[in-house]
């Protein structure tokens, strides 16, 4: 454990990882209950185009990815609402386009290299100080907004019509959740990479939902599971020389499986 106190890069990774994990888990709970768990997956692929564009234009890939992801998330939402496309169809179309554009741009930029792989598979152990602060700040904003609208988000997820009649502006809050999801996906990308970020959004929340008997529990359990996955994932990755992203996701899956089986077992007995 000493290394975690000595090496700056490990501390930075831990610090950013914990913040990002919590914001992923918080949103994950709402997304799963809104039947929208694939949105993270779709946005991650679109983020790939953003990163490739950033590398192509030689401007901060994280920033470009953020803008592209938010725009795409709103686009998906509008398509779903206005054009009568099924939600998962809109996601499928946008995410494949993102990947396609990303491949073309990355090739043009001749940037199929370590940089790009870092974004694809995660490079939290190589995270820079500026990125740590950006991640923490954004994750803190996400957490703050979720706490601010906690009851409203819960209400509109549970019973949309009654929520509307209680005066909640559900349309506006839909946009807010969508934007927060896009931001969270981009943040998660730094931790576990584009290919695995949706796992960080969905799996800890799904695990928490297995055992929770009320909403508060679901939120707290999911966040804890996400933090534990990231902490122990990084720890194992460092000591056994595993890739951090894969280790974190496998760990969260093991926790999910354990809770899943536990729940079935409890129900039988």
């Amino acid at each position, binding site marked *: 454990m000493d290394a975690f106190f000595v090496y700056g890069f490990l501390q930075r990774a831990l610090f950013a990882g914990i913040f990002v994990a919590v914001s992923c888990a918080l949103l994950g709970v709402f997304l799963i*209950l809104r039947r929208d768990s694939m949105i993270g997956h779709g946005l991650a692929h679109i983020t790939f185009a953003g990163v490739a564009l950033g590398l192509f234009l030689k401007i901060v890939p994280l920033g470009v990815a953020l803008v592209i992801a938010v725009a795409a998330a709103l686009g998906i939402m509008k398509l779903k609402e206005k054009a009568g496309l099924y939600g998962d169809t809109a996601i499928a179309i946008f995410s494949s386009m993102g990947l396609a554009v990303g491949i073309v741009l990355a090739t043009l930029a001749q940037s199929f290299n370590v940089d790009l792989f870092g974004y694809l598979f995660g490079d939290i152990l190589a995270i820079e100080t500026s990125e740590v602060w950006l991640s923490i700040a954004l994750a803190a904003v996400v957490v703050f907004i979720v706490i*601010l609208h906690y*009851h*409203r988000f*819960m*209400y509109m*997820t*549970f*019973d*949309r*019509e*009654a*929520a*509307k*009649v*209680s*005066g*909640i502006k559900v349309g506006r809050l839909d946009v807010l959740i969508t934007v927060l999801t896009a931001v969270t996906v981009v943040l998660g990308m730094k931790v576990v990479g584009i290919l695995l970020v949706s796992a960080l959004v969905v799996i800890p929340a799904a695990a928490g*939902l297995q055992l*929770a*008997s*009320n*909403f*508060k*529990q*679901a939120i707290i359990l999911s966040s804890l599971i996400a933090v534990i996955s990231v902490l122990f994932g990084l720890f194992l990755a460092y000591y056994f020389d595993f890739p951090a992203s894969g280790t974190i996701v496998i760990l969260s899956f093991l926790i999910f499986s354990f809770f899943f089986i536990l729940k079935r077992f409890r129900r039988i007995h």
Partner: protein
Amino acid sequence: MDSSAADSKPLIDVKNISFNYGPVEVLKDVTFTISSGDFLAIIGPNGSGKTTLIKIILGLMKPSHGEARILGKPVEEFEDWSKVGYVPQKATHIDPLFPASIKEVVAMELLASRRFLRMKKREEEVSIEKALKQVNMERFKNWRIGSLSGGQQQRVFIARAIVNQPHILFLDEPTTGVDTETQEHFYDMLDSLNKEEGITIVMITHDIGIVNKHVNQVACLNQKLVYHGSHEEFCQSQAFKDMLAGGHHLVSHRH
């Protein structure tokens, strides 16, 4: 010409509302008012536009023509939603696995309009307890909503709808799938909300039997408003006779 209507200040004012769903005319030129203290039953056959009418009044749907006003304001401009309680049609809209306790379900409504700084935790608890007590569900406050029976869930949704002490409560077929004995308790409970708490109640129902015992106003809908007035007159009216003569399923409708 509106001066006399404005003086009596109806809680709800429905003016010339029509609603078309594609070529289908769901509502045709419906006009009526609901006054403070009313216990109004909206009855009519399936597809007669009852739910649509309530959704238009609550601003959930836009009418093709006409206007609905709540407390004198057009519904699009109305903002004081804590004065309105709503219990939507049951079962179809609730996820049985949703991880919310009864307490949390009621808290959603109580805290929906709150800013970041909430009222004191203690006051919250008191309001929630009171609402649950009114529907006789306080024992279940820590249960998960999905683990309750249909009738119990309905009670919780009523607690949720009255937690802000609304002036008016809308219920869309609240007793669907609830056994007869429980229904009686349920209507008694609505009675006491109406008479003791002074909450105006608007209820869509298939069950004309209860109309006699509990409500004081009836609106009979079949695309058009066939009848609107006191329940005593309703029983003498042509609309009522037509309904009976037709052997209409709404006389005794059970799901």
